[in-house]
């Protein structure tokens, strides 16, 4: 399942997509939990009883601000969350 967390507002689209099929039997040891400097990810049991990564509820409406530090302007060449997730489940829309 592709889970898109985020929103669209007047300034643009801000979605973090998680391919939760890649979270099942995660080969990266749940590295997303520590890879994000703000600790935005958590592991939940989804509606189909699979343990998958999700963006915490408290961050879902403020992604544009919370992720700013990890964008190129913040000195990063790649996103820490996407880099940590070696199965390639995490993507940003912006």
């Amino acid at each position: 399942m592709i889970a898109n967390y985020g929103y669209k507002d007047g300034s643009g689209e801000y979605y973090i997509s998680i391919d939760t099929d890649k979270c099942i039997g995660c080969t990266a040891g749940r590295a997303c939990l520590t890879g994000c400097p703000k600790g935005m990810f958590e592991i939940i049991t989804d509606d189909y009883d699979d343990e998958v990564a999700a963006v915490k509820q408290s961050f879902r409406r403020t992604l544009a601000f919370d992720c700013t530090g990890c964008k190129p302007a913040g000195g990063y060449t790649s996103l820490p969350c996407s880099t940590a997730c070696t199965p390639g489940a995490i993507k940003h829309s912006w």
Partner: protein
Amino acid sequence: MTAGEKKEYWRWQENCWIDESKNWRDAKIITAGIDVGSVSSQAVICVDGELYGFNSMRTGNNSPDSATNAINGVLEKSGMKLEDITYVIGTGYGRVNVPFAHKAITEIACHARGANYMGGNSVRTILDMGGQDCKAIHCDEKGKVTNFLMNDKCAAGTGRGMEVIADLMQIPIAELGQRSFDVDVEPEAVSSTCVVFAKSEALGLLKAGYSKNKVIAAYCQAMAERVVSLIERIGVENDFFITGGIAKNPGVVKRIEKLLGTKAVDTKYDSQIAGALGAALFGYTLMQKQGASKAAA
């Protein structure tokens, strides 16, 4: 209506129905789904995996009370007691506040499952236009979610926005959709779908000489454009199905269909019960699995 009494144009029709052709006393498994949304609450009862009855009403200021009132409506009409129900699943915004629920499941999974029942197993894309949020969902032939996107940051393009316009125009909400077609030329969409700004923009248009119908048409178009931009992010795959209260507004539905270039599947069911129906069906599957595992043990 007495002087000083304000008519509530936004108030939509609450609805309670049971299938008189079915006898719940003959059922092996009775399950219920309770969808406590931000604007409306629904209770659905299924007997042996088939829709038996539902109650759809406005959510009050207390989620547990809303859930209880919703289920009581169907129970009273059917002569059933809460104890007769084998399993109850809560869903929606207030899903964790359903006092008699055995489990909570997100409304995303429940809407997909409900749409699969209401629109058939060929439904692949679902647009849920709720009271205060909007969801675009992809599912497989079993109604299992494969992709979803939700916008709950802003009430634009939602049922609450339409309620505000109904009150502003002083036209009953059920008539808005049809009135929006009664224009000579289709107007441009209002530039903002923000519930707050749309109100002031609509007032500006009225002052500029727009008829009420033209303002409604402009708002319906804006709402359609707003949700279409959301659904296009995950793509549209036929069959396409719309759930939620806005599905009853032909002014928005027809404009969405035109923008997407596809027709939404018609259904004989009330579009507002999709979430609660899906929850009740989840309960049925769970009970079947438990029964099967007990039998195997």
